[in-house]
């Protein structure tokens, strides 16, 4: 019988939540890597038993873990992330140039075709690739040539936090960086172009045509329609219909267009989910009500999904990598909060239940749909 495996990264370890296709009863295992920050863990689309995890610590640095049995056992693999060539500099908060310094891996994106190939998005922003299951890593330095000297860290650092692989074109990759923006490669990551036309960040970037410097929080696509991208920006929910060549706003009637994650329904390319957050300084839901908003029209028209979610006194946040969907016939939607709850909906967001309520702050949520 098919089922799902939810991979949860938290401030103090990883947890794996499993259920059958009904998604009513859950088994919780973990913590794995107790005490370490797990920014992200994700499974290979072609081998669901192959998982990668980013384990880090302010004390002991970066570790990459790999599992070949669906998360039952793990093995530390390579953790040497060394920038290619001359390290170079990027813009610092005071406007001076600052050397690139590796801090951590924010996001791991396994290849769509080969379980041994995996991409890592790191802080300070760069993209690395491994072709040997994470044992060794090499940078794709062409990304930092896309006006990297103008990139500047946001409040959370300068992390490459989103990697989107085009299922129809193995050479096309999108990445998003805080606070530089979206970049696209059409040659497998060798060369890159900024893909931020149409984004507006008036207060930070007076130049309306600024190619880089936009605070993009997350981007996503539907596999069946890879030229359409959705974005949750620092402010504004945006859409591109031309593979990032241009963007237009689809915030519509959202109560706040600030937020972090964005996800697309597994079977409906125009059904999109966001979690509005009141503002960029308060970082909690408007009115203390935790509401997922769903658009069935590809943006602009949004409905609040509230059944089963706290509608008073709720002041958690939902971080950029902490929402995902499964691919079962009735699409499941999942998200985790900084309050340690992981919520699941087995009916595309109509109703929600909490799988767990008291984990450490959730940093990431990914879902595997198992045969």
């Amino acid at each position, binding site marked *: 019988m098919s089922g799902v495996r939810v991979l949860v990264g938290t401030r103090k370890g990883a947890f794996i939540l499993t259920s059958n296709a009904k998604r009513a009863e859950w088994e919780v295992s973990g913590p794995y890597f*107790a*005490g*370490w920050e797990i920014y992200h863990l994700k499974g290979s689309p072609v081998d669901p038993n192959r998982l990668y995890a980013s384990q880090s*610590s*302010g*004390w*002991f*640095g*970066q*570790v990459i873990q790999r599992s070949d049995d669906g998360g039952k056992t793990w093995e*530390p693999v390579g*953790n*040497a*992330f*060394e920038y290619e060539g001359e390290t170079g500099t990027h813009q610092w908060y005071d406007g001076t140039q600052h050397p690139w310094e590796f801090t951590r891996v924010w996001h791991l994106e396994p290849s769509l075709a080969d379980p041994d190939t995996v991409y890592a998005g790191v802080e300070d922003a760069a993209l690395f690739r491994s072709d040997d299951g994470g044992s060794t890593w090499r940078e794709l330095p062409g990304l930092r040539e896309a006006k990297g000297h103008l990139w500047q860290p946001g409040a959370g650092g300068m992390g490459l936090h989103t990697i989107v692989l085009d299922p129809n074109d193995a050479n096309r990759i999108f990445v998003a960086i805080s606070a530089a923006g979206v970049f696209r490669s059409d040659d497998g990551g060798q060369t890159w172009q900024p893909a931020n036309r149409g984004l507006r960040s008036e207060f930070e970037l007076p130049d309306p045509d600024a190619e880089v410097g936009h605070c993009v929080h997350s981007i996503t696509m539907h596999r069946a329609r890879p030229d359409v991208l959705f974005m949750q920006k620092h402010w504004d929910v945006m859409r591109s219909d031309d593979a990032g060549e241009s963007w237009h706003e689809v915030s519509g009637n959202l109560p706040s267009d600030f937020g972090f994650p964005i996800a697309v329904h597994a079977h409906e390319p125009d059904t999109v989910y966001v979690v509005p957050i009141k503002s960029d300084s308060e970082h909690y839901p408007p009115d203390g009500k935790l509401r997922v908003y769903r658009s069935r029209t590809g943006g602009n028209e949004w409905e609040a999904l509230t059944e089963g979610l706290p509608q008073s006194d709720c002041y958690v946040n939902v971080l950029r990598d902490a929402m995902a969907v499964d691919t079962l016939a009735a699409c499941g939607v999942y998200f985790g909060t900084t309050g340690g709850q992981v919520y699941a909906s087995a009916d595309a967001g109509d109703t929600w239940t909490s799988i767990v309520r008291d984990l450490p702050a959730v940093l990431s949520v990914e879902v595997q749909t198992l045969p």
Partner: protein
Amino acid sequence: MIRVTIPVHLRTLAGTGKEVSLQVDGPVTQRAVLNALETAYPTLRGTIRDHASGQRRPLVRFFACGQDLSHESPDAPLPDAVATGAEPFLIVGAMAGG
């Protein structure tokens, strides 16, 4: 043999106990001890000192014989008691919660 005490998170990572014993050939220095430790336990590479620069990570400290050796040269000889195995070389995660 040189005795090295490692912090709990690194014991888990290396799959070892609180203290490990290492053979160090030549002068017993921080660098020589850490080289031997990383050779014996490759998963510790990058967790105590930076991969590229070889610098001690900021919140990792080194102690031995009641002394903080964190700021000593990595090539300075460690105390004789460490070199003879009478005392352990302590790798410590700094108390830095704030």
